[in-house]
């Protein structure tokens, strides 16, 4: 008896293991994801940026009420004369940083939401507080639904969503392409509208890609021959051109497969149509009820295993 059940048990484990093996295999077979090039986005050209931070101040001016942004004081600035965020934070949606390798080799870089084609944050949000608008492709956040679990922060490969750690009633802060403010009023995001050097170009992804390719072709010596965001993590709507390798600018190397594709494939294989859990429950019910009846049926025979069958 003991040996049989052990064998059964191993069989069960083996079967479920094989099932998961199959699904892990399926997940590796990467299917091409459809990219929608009509979505809205921005092209940031680091070689044109002069680091004036006008985009940062425009963003905060326009979105401070709606996006719960505030000014951050620097340590030396006790009067609060400047807004001096050191990184994206619960008060800051976009940020310019300078990366200086040597006196000759340096570059500015702008951080804000990448508005992915297949966003991880939308894929993992348990209550649909993160959404991707079907037409514009804007990855938007709804604080009235958000439970504050911060799974979006864990999931985002670019570390974009930020949490208000110091507040009793916190929320997530991230760029929504001025969806409810500047974009609605003027049809362009505040940062792109303000940029004095044209380093930020606002438009449809299709146009941005064309523009980027033209710039790469015209000035091959000026740029690294790569449009960051064209394929990274399934493609992003916020695209980058730069003269320095992107990983030196704090933009991670990411495979073309969207991380969300990988995880969703496994999750979907396990929970397809909710069949597996229901089947598991029914099978277990069948076994348990059979065992219980067996124990009651055997009555008082001197089988040590059945000494608990009495009902009270």
């Amino acid at each position, binding site marked *: 008896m003991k040996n049989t059940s052990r064998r059964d048990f191993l069989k069960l484990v083996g079967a479920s293991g094989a099932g998961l093996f199959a699904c892990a295999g399926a*997940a590796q077979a990467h299917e091409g994801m459809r990219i929608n090039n009509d979505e809205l986005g921005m092209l940031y050209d680091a070689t044109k940026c002069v680091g004036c931070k006008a985009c940062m101040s425009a963003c905060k001016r326009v979105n401070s009420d709606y996006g719960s942004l505030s000014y951050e004081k620097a340590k030396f600035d006790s009067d609060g004369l400047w807004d001096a965020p050191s990184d994206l934070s619960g008060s800051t949606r976009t940020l310019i940083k300078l990366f200086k390798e040597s006196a000759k080799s340096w570059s500015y870089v702008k951080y804000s939401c990448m508005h992915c084609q297949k966003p991880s944050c939308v894929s993992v949000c348990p209550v649909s507080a993160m959404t991707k608008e079907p037409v514009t492709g804007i990855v938007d956040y709804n604080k009235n639904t958000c439970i504050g679990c911060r799974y979006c922060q864990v999931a985002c490969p670019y570390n974009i969503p930020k949490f208000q750690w110091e507040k009793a009633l916190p929320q997530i802060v991230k760029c929504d392409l001025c969806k409810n403010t500047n974009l609605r009023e003027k049809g362009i995001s505040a940062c792109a509208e303000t940029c004095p050097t044209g380093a930020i170009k606002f438009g449809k992804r299709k146009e941005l890609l064309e523009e980027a390719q033209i710039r790469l072709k015209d000035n091959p010596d000026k740029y690294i021959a790569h449009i960051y965001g064209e394929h990274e993590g399934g493609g992003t709507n916020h695209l980058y051109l730069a003269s320095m390798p992107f990983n030196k600018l704090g933009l991670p190397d990411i495979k073309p497969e969207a991380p969300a594709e990988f995880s969703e494939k496994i999750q979907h294989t396990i929970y397809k149509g909710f069949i597996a*859990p229901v089947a598991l429950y029914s099978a277990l019910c069948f076994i348990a009820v059979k065992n219980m009846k067996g124990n009651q049926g055997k009555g008082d025979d001197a089988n*040590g295993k059945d000494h608990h069958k009495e009902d009270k």
Partner: protein
Amino acid sequence: MAHSEDYQKLEGKIFTKSFFILLAVVLVGFFFVGVRFVKGIGAVSNMSDGYPWGIWITYDVATGTAIACGGYAVAILVYIRNRMQYHPLIRSAILTSMFGYGLAGFSVMVDLGRPWNAYNFFIPSKWQANSAMFEVALCVMAYSTVLIIEFIPAILTSIENSKWTRMNAIRNWLHPRIAPDQKTMTDTLEAVRLGAAWLKPRLNKVLIFFIVLGITLPTMHQSSLGSLLLIASTKLHPLWHTGFLPLLFLINCVFIGYSIAILESIISCFSFHRPYEVEELSGLAGLVPYVTVIWLSVVIGDLVHRNQLNAALKWDFYSCFFMAEFLLIAVGSLLLFSKKLRRSPRWLFVSASLIVLGGALYRFNVYLIGFNPGKGWHYFPSFGEVMVTVGIVALEILAYKVFVALFPVLPSAAGHGRKAPGRVQAPAGAPQREADFNGTLSPIPVQYKTAIETQN
């Protein structure tokens, strides 16, 4: 199905010295919970935008629920593999599971930034089936409910047999003007008792369906706890990031569950001065190495499959933690392959501890240690953060101690106690229960044996 005769209440005082020490720890923890709700999460914890999940998620939820899988693991054994001899262990295993999951739920509420929006989990239009977190949340809530239902028979038995002495004492202590009328109170209590007596057989009839639900739900959400980190492909170290995370987490919770059931039985027998349940424990311990061997083979097979074996042998920061996790589990399991060691409570304790530590370290590795969000981010829990977790664990132990005294939870010593060869004598000063043991090696408890003999 009632099996009430298998269990007994623990006799003795509730308000002991350790009770008040634990209570003090709980109060310190709750002080920091208060600070968190007034001044924000940042005021208490060291979590940051790079490490948005600290020990509250890693320990209380990801590891705590695995440690609370004793109920799950023992239920598989008893009801699915039909090993009724382990039935005496199940009620205390379910009780710890109930507290483990309840308090994991509580610490999630502390950890959530906007807990007042949590009702969205119940609004179908907000459901997001792609999210492993959604699956975990619903399953954990459902499982906590199932655990409470599974525990209700113990409470009903208590209500049925209670003489309400404490309740009457409180009534007599109250001023006559505010005290309820003696007759009304007796009538109400009688009604409650009748209600309990009415409910118990009916609940027992359908209980098996809840028990099976209590096996299905952990299978789902324990694997999903692994799925949670599937998305972090750029942040989680390749030693741990694999498509097998769900499977590894599922097997991991099974062997942690069995080991915890062993530890819990040994610790409660030791601290409550009861005889050790060596028969059940050595049988249970015999299963553990088979489960861990499966787990270890999946881990190695997967590393080979993904060409990461050299990363494991690099002996850098990550490799050391990987090796620690791997060796703790391997050594603990090796000890359990020995039949002799399995019958010694001391070695059982050592090996089960090693396996629980290794299994828990695996979960820490996946959630925190192997998680690297990029340059410039560091995390080590703050004092307040640790105290919240410690307070929650203290509350769990406290509630366990109170519950085993109030309800019939622990295996009845008279019901199945027996002198096993490897049994360690109860510590000095323990209540003399030796007279209760029938002094045989038979797995059949004495009262059944006599019943069988008389029938024959």
